[in-house]
């Protein structure tokens, strides 16, 4: 299995699992990158990234600094936060920094933009490069100003000698737009306590482009003679192509390309290509009946590979003995789509044995390999440029649109653009997997959890193991989002969906904690704290409770208040919510959400708040409405009418709390709060109405059914 086609984020996997995943065809860049990043001493080394500082930055004669990174701006503020980091280390003004992202020709290799890894893994490399550059620039300035480098001061890229006022030299004058040919080893990065740019909120670098419509996305590039392609698609996953008659489309003036598995209709105008596609008569043989969105859970249990241990301590038999009562529950979640507003798009040119593809992708470098392979070109003859990307959430780690565009550009000899329509976006999405979690637990007569036996099927094991203090526990996992599942286990390709595995596991664990709290007759927050010795998690819970004004009560209290917490890649989040349940319609309105996170040092606090707000909003979708409807390989959701994503009227009052941990390395904040959203809403519904929903999403129909049962 190659990491480039599934785009899996690596964290949460042990070395052993990584090697199991990577298999014999170990992908060197992939493994080195993050294995290195696992090492505790992260600074100032640049493991997995180039050692040459010129790969990261260029200084123009006018003193403007350009920062280069293989990361992509998906909307999460990579441009802004990376510019902050470089400005800080170089001691130039934030506004002096321009940034070039996601261009395989100009930027240092990067595995991809996912897993909250920009700040965590690329950040240290960039800091190291910036610190080294500054040290060299001071050395050069010292020679010019005839002063020891240690005495020099620098502000805004202007170097001065305090002993000879009036004399100065700028970075721009020192470098003259050239490469920095010197090299220095072991330069220390700036201590966090000295930060003036990082650690403070910054104006987004992409703001003007985005409010004026000037921001270019992959489907906005046009070239003379460019053709728009629409492709013949199967009606269902597993359908077999039989035959196609494209004569009517050709008669209507479209160009038809048939090459291997591709049948494409091309036209200078995208809508006319679409009309012509409607004239193609294609026949497919549907697959044999398999499963649908209702039977999928039984199907998963039947088809999952054997359970694998993912952590254990104590002895389950002892736990049984110590338990005065036991509880066994099952938690379900359906497939969930990424549904970015920009569908997968690509514009490709192939000329003189070189391909250039502008693509909405989270992983330009692995896409380069895929395109090179598809076209029979050497990777160095393929350039991928990820311009602004209209939302990723994990879904643009994969996607064949760029390969389609490149193949068609090669076949036609013209620039070709492929923009998936919304139905294609749903059909080819690498869904967050449907999953089943079974938990068997036991309480002592004193209300302490003595037993915890946790099994997850389909979602994966990340953060499946509980961090609560439970003496006898076991965690097991079968199958997951990373691929490698038995054929036919999942509807189609599954993949990373914002905080992969962890939404499922947090929903199950935190719902179950509330069930046990209610059984023990203890307030849900107090019950958690009684089983929690992790200081960081206690602190986010307590911070959220203080802001929320949490009042201890045994649930259901009728107030509709809920709590949930969890870890995500060494960040932790605690969320509290207040909901109202309409007993007539089953509609759940989330009225207020308070979320606290600890992500180590927050480089851009407002950027982190934007991510937290985004997590809460997006999380309401998988909590309340989002599930992919399908039957026998056919994806029934084709647009936003049946697949409902959060809207303005859903938005609760939002309060975000950042727990400042400047002593801890920044760990990235694109994902933590979203993991709590299923459970916090489920727990608040229980507190409001006394009904326990164990299946996501908690649609009005499921709420009504639960109310009927009582």
């Amino acid at each position, binding site marked *: 299995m190659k990491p480039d086609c599934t785009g899996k984020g690596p964290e949460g996997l042990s070395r052993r699992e990584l090697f199991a995943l990577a298999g014999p065809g170990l992908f060197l860049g992939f493994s080195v990158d993050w294995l290195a990043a696992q090492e505790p001493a992260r600074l100032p080394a640049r493991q997995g990234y180039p050692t040459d500082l010129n790969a990261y930055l260029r200084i123009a004669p006018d003193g403007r600094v350009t920062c280069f990174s293989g990361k992509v701006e998906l909307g999460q503020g990579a441009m802004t936060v990376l510019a902050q980091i470089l400005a800080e280390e170089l001691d130039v003004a934030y506004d002096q920094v321009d940034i070039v992202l996601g261009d395989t020709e100009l930027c240092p290799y990067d595995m991809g933009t996912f897993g909250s890894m920009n700040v965590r893994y690329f950040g240290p490399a960039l800091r190291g490069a910036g610190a080294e550059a500054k040290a060299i620039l001071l050395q050069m300035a010292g020679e010019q100003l005839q002063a020891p480098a240690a005495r020099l001061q620098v502000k805004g890229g202007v170097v001065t000698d305090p002993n000879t006022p009036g004399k100065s030299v700028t970075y721009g004058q020192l470098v003259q737009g050239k490469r920095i040919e010197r090299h220095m080893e072991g330069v220390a990065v700036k201590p966090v306590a000295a930060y003036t740019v990082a650690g403070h909120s910054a104006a987004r670098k992409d703001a003007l482009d985005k*409010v004026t419509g000037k921001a270019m996305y992959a489907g906005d590039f046009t070239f003379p003679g460019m053709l728009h392609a629409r492709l013949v698609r199967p009606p269902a996953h597993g359908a077999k192509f039989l035959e196609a008659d494209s004569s009517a489309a050709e008669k209507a003036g479209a160009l038809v390309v048939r090459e291997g598995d591709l049948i494409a209709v091309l036209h200078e105008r995208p809508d006319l290509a679409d009309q012509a596609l409607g004239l193609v008569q294609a026949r497919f043989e549907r697959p044999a009946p398999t499963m649908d969105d209702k039977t999928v859970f039984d199907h998963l249990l039947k088809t999952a590979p054997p359970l694998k241990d993912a952590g254990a301590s104590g002895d389950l038999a002892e736990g049984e003995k110590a338990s005065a009562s036991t509880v066994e529950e099952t938690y379900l979640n359906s497939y969930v789509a990424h549904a970015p507003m920009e569908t997968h798009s690509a514009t490709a040119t192939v000329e003189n044995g070189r391909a250039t593809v502008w693509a909405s992708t989270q992983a330009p470098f692995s896409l380069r390999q895929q395109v090179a392979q598809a076209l029979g070109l050497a990777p160095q003859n393929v350039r991928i440029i990820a311009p602004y990307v209209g939302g990723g959430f994990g879904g643009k780690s994969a996607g064949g649109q760029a390969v389609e565009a490149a193949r068609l550009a090669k076949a036609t000899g013209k620039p070709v653009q492929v923009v998936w329509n919304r139905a294609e976006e749903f059909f080819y999405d690498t869904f967050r997997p449907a999953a089943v979690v079974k938990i068997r637990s036991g309480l002592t007569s004193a209300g302490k959890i003595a037993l915890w036996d946790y099994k997850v099927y389909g979602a994966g094991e990340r953060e499946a193991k509980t961090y609560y203090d439970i003496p006898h526990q076991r965690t097991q996992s079968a199958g997951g989002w990373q691929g490698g599942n038995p054929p036919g286990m999942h509807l189609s390709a599954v993949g990373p969906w914002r905080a992969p595995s962890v939404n499922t596991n947090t929903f199950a664990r935190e719902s179950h904690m509330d069930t046990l709290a209610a059984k023990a007759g203890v307030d849900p927050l107090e019950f958690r704290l009684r089983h929690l010795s992790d200081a960081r998690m206690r602190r986010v819970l307590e911070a959220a409770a203080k802001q929320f004004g949490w009042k201890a009560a045994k649930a259901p209290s009728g107030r509709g208040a809920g709590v949930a917490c969890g870890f995500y890649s060494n960040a932790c989040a605690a969320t509290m919510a207040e909901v109202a349940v309409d007993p007539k319609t089953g509609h759940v309105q989330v009225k207020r959400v308070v979320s606290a996170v600890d992500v180590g040092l927050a480089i851009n606090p*407002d950027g982190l708040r934007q991510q937290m707000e985004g997590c809460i909003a997006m999380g309401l979708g998988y909590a309340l409405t989002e599930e992919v409807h399908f039957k026998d390989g056919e994806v029934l959701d084709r647009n936003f009418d049946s697949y409902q994503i959060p*809207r303005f009227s859903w938005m609760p009052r939002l309060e975000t709390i950042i727990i400042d941990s400047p002593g801890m390395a920044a760990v990235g904040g694109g994902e933590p709060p979203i993991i709590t959203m299923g459970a916090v809403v489920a727990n608040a519904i229980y507190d409001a109405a006394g009904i326990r929903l164990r299946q996501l999403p908690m649609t009005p129909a499921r709420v009504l059914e639960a109310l009927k049962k009582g």
Partner: protein
Amino acid sequence: MERTISFTLNGRPVSVKVEDGRMLLWVLRSDLGLTGTKFGCGEGLCGACTVIVNQQAVRSCSVPVAEVAGKQVMTIEGLGQSGLHAIQAAFVKHHAFQCGYCTSGMILNAYALLLKTPKPTPLQIAQHMEDNLCRCGAHTRIVDAIGEAAGASKGGAR
């Protein structure tokens, strides 16, 4: 059948020779090269393609271009041609976007709201914006930005 459709686009007269029944979105993006207007769903469900026609917000993916003959059309490229419009400035200030793909539609739908209701309440803003979808979750900032652009947060009109 091809015919020539004339209308005013961002203050300037334009004529395009187009097939009958083509939607405004594609003519804007492909024939006229204005790519600030986005394709999101193709069925008027998401609002990414929102433009202003005779002072009303419309979904350009679902408006045949023939319907705008003789009318005034404004896209995001036409807003704030001489410096940022108050709505754009407020979106910048509040960081009322993330990926930015829905932003053109959000801003133009807000523009139509403020023409009709110069001092909307947050609830009126949310109701008016309800069918413009944002996947990144910038909703509350969008409401704040529109409120500020309307002068609501300053307690007076601009």
